[in-house]
């Protein structure tokens, strides 16, 4: 049905008019996203206390991210959080979704709701609740005490070794539901014939999982990983409410440092540089994940 009448022009209105339709949305986008980002990049080249005249600092703020031990550590902590926010939930979510999908349990909707519930609660509320659980006289220690494991009790969030994993576990608890529900949705679209064929070929439950289920939900895995990795890297509220980066600096993360430097230490330039770097890291990682997923689906 191609109608090539005269000029080799695609049908419909002239292309340029399309930009006019985009304009309103673009203006909003530019005013609330592009301009602030540009401004943040601009600020990151200054040594500025937020009040008086800034001093041009060139790349100093960026150099500090690499050379400053504390900042390097903050990015390191964010990587540890990726394990708790993305890797563990993915493993647990895959297992849980496979079981729920396979077993055709009664009350699937109920389980799905329960597993998804943490996502519905605001992170600040989650953090306050977990702060109580981890308190020296909190639920976790009471539970350990009841089991006769008194030697394991401690002030979890104040312990240099356990504070970061403790914060991470909250992330795991929070993200697992999202990952599970995403994967369940993906698995429900797998045609039954595939499983039938696998079974005819003599595959067991495990082999079936790796040969059929896993490859079919690759797209969902990519989505889940993107969402959870981003959540891990930009963790702020959880750390702010539970530990404020402590004890010492053992749970400080980049997003917390952005806030802390801008509003606590009056180092706005440095805060902006961390923010810009974090944005680039997040962009690179999610780009990488999506490239990986695209390549493997084709």
């Amino acid at each position: 049905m191609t109608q090539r009448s005269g000029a080799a022009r695609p049908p419909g209105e002239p292309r340029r008019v399309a930009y006019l339709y985009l304009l309103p949305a673009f203006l909003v986008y530019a005013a609330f996203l592009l301009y602030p980002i540009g401004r943040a990049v601009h600020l990151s080249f200054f040594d500025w206390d937020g009040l008086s005249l800034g001093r041009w600092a060139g790349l100093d703020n960026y150099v500090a991210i690499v050379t400053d031990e504390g900042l390097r550590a903050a990015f390191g902590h964010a990587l540890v959080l990726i394990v708790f926010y993305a890797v563990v939930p993915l493993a647990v979510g895959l297992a849980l979704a496979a079981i729920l999908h396979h077993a055709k349990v009664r009350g699937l909707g109920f389980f799905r709701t329960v597993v998804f519930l943490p996502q519905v609660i605001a992170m600040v509320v989650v953090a306050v609740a977990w702060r109580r659980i981890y308190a020296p006289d909190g639920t976790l220690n009471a539970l350990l005490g009841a089991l006769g494991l008194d030697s394991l009790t401690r002030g979890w969030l104040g312990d240099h070794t356990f504070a970061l994993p403790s914060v991470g576990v909250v992330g795991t608890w929070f993200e697992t539901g999202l990952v599970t529900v995403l994967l369940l949705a993906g698995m429900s679209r797998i045609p039954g014939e595939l499983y039938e064929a696998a079974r005819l070929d003599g595959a067991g439950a495990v082999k079936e999982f790796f040969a059929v289920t896993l490859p079919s939900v690759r797209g969902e895995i990519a989505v889940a990983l993107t969402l959870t990795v981003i959540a891990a890297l930009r963790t702020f509220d959880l750390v702010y409410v539970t530990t404020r980066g402590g004890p010492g600096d053992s749970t400080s993360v980049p997003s917390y440092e952005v806030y802390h430097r801008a509003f606590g230490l009056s180092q706005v330039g440095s805060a902006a540089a961390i923010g810009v770097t974090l944005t680039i890291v997040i962009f690179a990682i999610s780009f990488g994940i999506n490239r990986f997923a695209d390549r493997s689906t084709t």
Partner: protein
Amino acid sequence: MIAPTREGRTTRSPGSRTLAVLAAAALTLAACAPGSSAPPAATPSQPGASAVRTDAATLGDVTLTVWDQEVRGGQAAQMKQLNAAFEAKYPNIKLNRVSRSFDDLNATLRLALSGNEPPDVVEANNGRSAMGAFVKAGQLLPLDAYAEAYGWKERYPESVLRYSRYSADGKVFGDGNLYGLPQVGEVVGIFYNAAKLTELGLEPPKTWEEFQAALAKAKAAGEVPMQLGNLDKWPAVHVFGTVQSRDVPADQIRTLAFGRKGASWNTPENTKAAQQLVDWVGKGYFNKGFNGQGYDPAWQAFGKGEGVFMIAGTWLLADLQKNLGDDVGFILPPGATVGAAPVATGGTGLPFAITAKSPHPDAAAAYIDFITSAEAMKVLTDTGNLPVADTAAQKVPEGPQQDVFTAFGTVSAENGLVPYLDYATPTFADTLGAALQDLLAEKASPQEFLATLEKDYKTFAESNG
């Protein structure tokens, strides 16, 4: 985009043109430095004593916007009462009160002050990161002319006023222009549970030795000797300050805490103080998991009878009294001997300051004068606060409240108040808080701990000139 020139007169290669454009862009970037739209950093002109008007009733219709942090029980009550009385006395002045918690106020004040219509009166934290930064940026009005006109220097002792003094460039803290006036006093001392002490057969300690003996006895009896919740990083600063001021001379602490050149953290006395704190941890004098316990849960636990002692500030009095009644007692940290001059960490509540851009500085000053007057001090007392001036003149029932009034009256009269250590540099609250968590968890030795503090202090003191 720059349209390419048709004539082709440009002999420069496209590469060099890109470079030039980039360089120009960098120059513009550098030129429009952030903060350049703000008013010139020149110090706001000090109004002369003659230009100041104290007749608030004749100032015409004025609306004052006041930002305070008086949100808790007794604090909120006194503010409400005083504001109502002020509006009744001066019907031409309306108050627009904005009240935020300490943390929220600190986080928002910076942005509010850099705007074009900042509030008229603000409660700004004394330290360098707040009041010091605002002074440096020329955002607060020097109040010396008003102090002269209203007689504030007679009302408040210099030991109180110096916590709100800065040089005009914001570099020197504790000296120079007056930028604010506080309402309440604060002192960090030792709360004790009187019932527990009686049970243990002890009296409130009169010397530091006796205090440590009492801690040991409480531990042996299976009590929690000292309650501490250090999850929020800063509470241990008060404990360390108290221990430190037993050994380190007061003038050295003042030099360190006001961030001036000429002192050092690396001294035997500071090492001894840090070591003592570590020893206390080793002996189990603190509650288990104190680094993971929040500040509020900790004093609430003390209020419920967990813990014999607690090193904390007078601001907890009203809340503790609610739970423990007359069983809660308060003493200044005792010295080496019974007669030793009292020294304690403390100072004032947040001072009320006037913004440089306020169109009604006279009305604002009248307001500050009103809420810090002798009558106001009485209202503060009646609502369970600790007034910063005339403390000895106030009548309070015997018991804990009198303990606190006596303690503050004594220490301020004998000039024994030493500033909070976190005033020292803009980053010191953070440095000290984190370093103390490390020290108390024995992740850092006293020497490493002091080296961390020394680095922050020296870096700042050197660059500050």
